[in-house]
């Protein structure tokens, strides 16, 4: 439901340009780029086309610039429930046919919701592009005709079961819900979980669906990327054809959130039906693509990526107090969270004692980074991995289409790959030290413990 690292796992296609930097560089750095054509329809829909002929398939990816941050308190989980409803048909697509038609053409589809956006995508043979555009334009233009209370009820039940499966019946599942509640005040749009609360899901009505659609699902609040085996001129004609009768609508004002800061250590202990204690530490950190965001991402790598990373080596490899540990910068539009999650090894000592010891060592290692910058080789190790990930992410058009929409949403430039990579490659050891000092305060953070016990 939420995305962790913006970098991980997205890819680009065929027409990518790889130019090598001059020979003098010891490790030639490929320049990565996804050439595109971008235009806006009269109804306000932004369209981005990218050609990649590796396989005769095409990816159609639509972002609506609305996520759970737009929800009202008392109707949490609605953006995601709404995502489910969007697959249940529209004026010219009867219930079930969205999937029936796509599968009959050799395609598949999915969607996901975060705090900031909702995405929908189809992957299908390139010759069936018209079908995907028919389906996407029909639900963008003509959804409300078919939404009945029964339809909302049906997906409400599915979503409640998604919540049970992914949070309530999953080990440590309650912790992820609790973290945002403890990190953000009630009036902040990141306070509640994207999946929502059971009572709120029960309360959602057909009128809520109408209001949400009218307010947030107009073409001017969306962007469409088509990546794959297309002829851009032909694809443009098809898009203009299928979206020509989708009416323009309002453009919602940007989400505004109050700046958020913890003023002290927030501590809580949960019990869960698990074998091993776990510690979560969380800090507020710079918003996605803002100064400091890449630093925090690299800092996470220095701490827990690979055997020689500082926390892994100390806690997992040397002391063997910890089974696994991860640090990550959860980048988001209104502000990010930096988290460290450590699961303890079995021990005869009480969970509180075990986690206190782990926390003390994490703090020692963070303090060392505040006192002196990382070594050059250590930083380079992380950056080289980042660079390889970028290359890998250029391979698959499905992922590349989503990334281009993400870049467009955040920066206005769908081909932001090289600029994004450059944020990382420019980092120096001092930058990491400065970020650790600025953001990883030990007296203003969340310390959430999970102890084995009855839920």
């Amino acid at each position, binding site marked *: 439901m939420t995305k962790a690292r913006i970098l991980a796992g997205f890819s680009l296609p065929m027409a*990518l340009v790889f130019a090598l930097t001059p020979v003098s560089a010891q490790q030639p750095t490929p320049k990565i780029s996804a050439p595109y054509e971008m235009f806006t329809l009269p109804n306000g829909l932004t369209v981005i086309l990218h050609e990649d002929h590796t396989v005769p398939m095409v990816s159609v990816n639509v972002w609506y610039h609305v996520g759970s941050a737009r929800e009202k308190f008392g109707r949490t989980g609605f953006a995601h429930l709404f995502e489910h409803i969007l697959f249940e048909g529209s004026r010219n697509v009867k219930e079930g046919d969205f999937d029936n038609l796509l599968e009959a053409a050799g395609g598949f589809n999915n969607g996901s919701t975060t705090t900031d956006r909702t995405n929908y995508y189809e992957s299908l043979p390139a010759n069936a592009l018209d079908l995907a555009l028919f389906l996407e334009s029909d639900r963008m233009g003509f959804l409300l005709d078919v939404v009945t209370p029964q339809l909302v009820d049906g997906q409400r*039940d599915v979503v409640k079961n998604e919540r049970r499966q992914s949070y309530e019946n999953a080990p440590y599942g309650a912790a992820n819900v609790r973290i945002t509640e403890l990190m953000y005040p009630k009036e902040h749009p990141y306070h509640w979980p994207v999946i929502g609360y059971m009572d709120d899901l029960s309360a959602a009505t057909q009128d809520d669906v109408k209001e949400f659609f009218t307010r947030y699902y107009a073409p001017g609040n969306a962007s469409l990327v088509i990546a794959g085996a297309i002829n851009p001129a032909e694809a443009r004609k098809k898009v203009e*054809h299928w979206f020509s009768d989708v009416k323009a609508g309002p453009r919602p004002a940007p989400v505004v959130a109050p700046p958020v800061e913890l003023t002290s250590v927030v501590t809580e202990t949960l019990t869960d039906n698990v074998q091993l204690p776990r510690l979560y530490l969380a800090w507020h950190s710079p918003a996605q693509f803002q100064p400091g965001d890449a630093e925090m991402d690299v800092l996470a790598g220095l701490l827990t990526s690979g055997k020689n990373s500082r926390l892994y080596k100390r806690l997992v490899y040397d002391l063997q107090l910890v089974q696994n540990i991860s640090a990550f910068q959860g980048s988001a539009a209104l502000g990010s969270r930096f988290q460290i999650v450590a699961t303890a090894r079995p021990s005869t000592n009480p969970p509180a004692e075990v986690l206190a010891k782990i926390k003390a060592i994490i703090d020692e290692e963070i303090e060392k980074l505040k006192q002196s910058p990382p070594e050059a080789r250590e930083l380079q190790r992380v950056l080289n991995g*980042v660079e390889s990930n970028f290359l890998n992410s*250029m391979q698959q058009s499905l992922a590349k289409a989503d990334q281009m929409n993400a870049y467009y949403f955040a920066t206005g430039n769908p081909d932001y790959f090289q600029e994004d990579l450059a944020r990382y490659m420019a980092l120096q050891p001092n930058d990491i030290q400065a970020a650790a000092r600025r953001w990883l305060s030990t007296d203003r953070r969340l310390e959430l413990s999970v102890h084995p016990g009855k839920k």
Partner: protein
Amino acid sequence: MRHWGNGVQRMRQWVNGMIGMGAVAMLLALPLAAQQAPDRSKAPAPGPAAALDLPAIQKRTLANGLPVWIVQMSKVPVVQVNLIVRAGASADPAGKYGLSSFTSAMLDEGAGTRDALALADAIEYLGISISTGSSWDSSTVGLFTPVSKLDDALPLMADVALRPMFSETEVERLRQERLTSLLQQRDNAAQLATQGFARLVYGPRHRYGTGATGNTASNGEMTTSEIRSFHAQYYQPQHAHLLVVGDVIADAILPKLEKTFGGWKNAGAAAAPPALGTATQHGAKQIYLIDRPGAPQSQIRIGWIGVPRNTPDYHVLEVMNTVLGGSFTSRLNQNLRERNGYSYGASSSFDMRMTAGPFVASSGVQTDKTAEALREFFNEFDAIRRPVTADELARAKNYLALGFPAGFETTGSMASQIGELIVHGLPEATFKEYVGKVLAVTAADVERAAKQYVQPDRFAVIVVGDLATIEQPIRAANLGPVRVVTVDEILK
């Protein structure tokens, strides 16, 4: 995410190479002509399917006899190199379950002249990734690298595959890590259900009745010398295959491979891993309940022993399972999720291994609807044994056949497709034939296969859930004999 993710993708694993122009195109109407306002009265039909031209596999052999297959894909300057050893968890000796997996895990804990930390540093400094892993039928060392780092990466990969240190200290460290992972299985109802299903269908004495990583007893006892022996016995050129996919030219990379892998020698006569026997099929319908007090959902697994990868019914079963539980529009998912709302998703699959792996239908359902959900599973098992509709059949066949090219887009996915040919000794034509064979499947084929491979009267049913709530309704539903089993019983 809306869908349940891996279920559908896994079905796709074997989807093949060449999109057939003939039969597929016949099913499709002409595309609509563009016009002022779109005609929405009927969905646009796809145009004729495009041909997928897979790059050729260039087959070479190193001086030591090691086969090398090279596929050039030049979109992105990266390379995937997989060394595939045809011995996996199925080669674990009785009582040593998890040996293949433990051996794989030890390969990068020090190799060549570098200890574990120095090796990790060398690999990470290059920004490459070297992975080691073991499945039922093979073990793989995989290298992903930018082309620019290939020359430095290959010797590291060869160290990991051929010259692991197997230090006692690292074995002890990994042992604790593995024992802890096994302990954590108890936290996860879905894992318990899957593990319980394997044990109750295959029993404790067949290798498939225990997880590939083994159990607490076997991992506790495994010795460094057993790990060394497994490596010595199976990691030899005569049991291995090298696969290179990416931005390389065969003639240019071959000397590099010769330099890094050409000196690897066979150690005596070939002793390929013995084939596993087929387990005794599950006898009569039996419901097994495992308690998870307070659980808001019940994890359900239903099925029995399925088929090996070399089954002559491969394509028929692909189509039959797509209708039953292998796609979003499949009957199980439509029933349990879309029609009844009991679940976030329901699916079914055949896990095809060298020896017959399981056929299993799965779902997590809300606790208070567990008995109802079980009844719906059995309704669908009965229904699939009757003729499928023409619409469903056409949709399932096109879903598999037309979507086939998606599995060949990246160096990693291409390598995994070709890797399956290597492990199962399948002809290269497998890809080209796939579409035609899928499209040739008839309703009568599906009915015959369903009657043979879906026999609900003999299925094992595993439910992990809150017995205080679900046991009585399940007994009252009279679906079959009920037995309560403990977590210890399935994990020991």
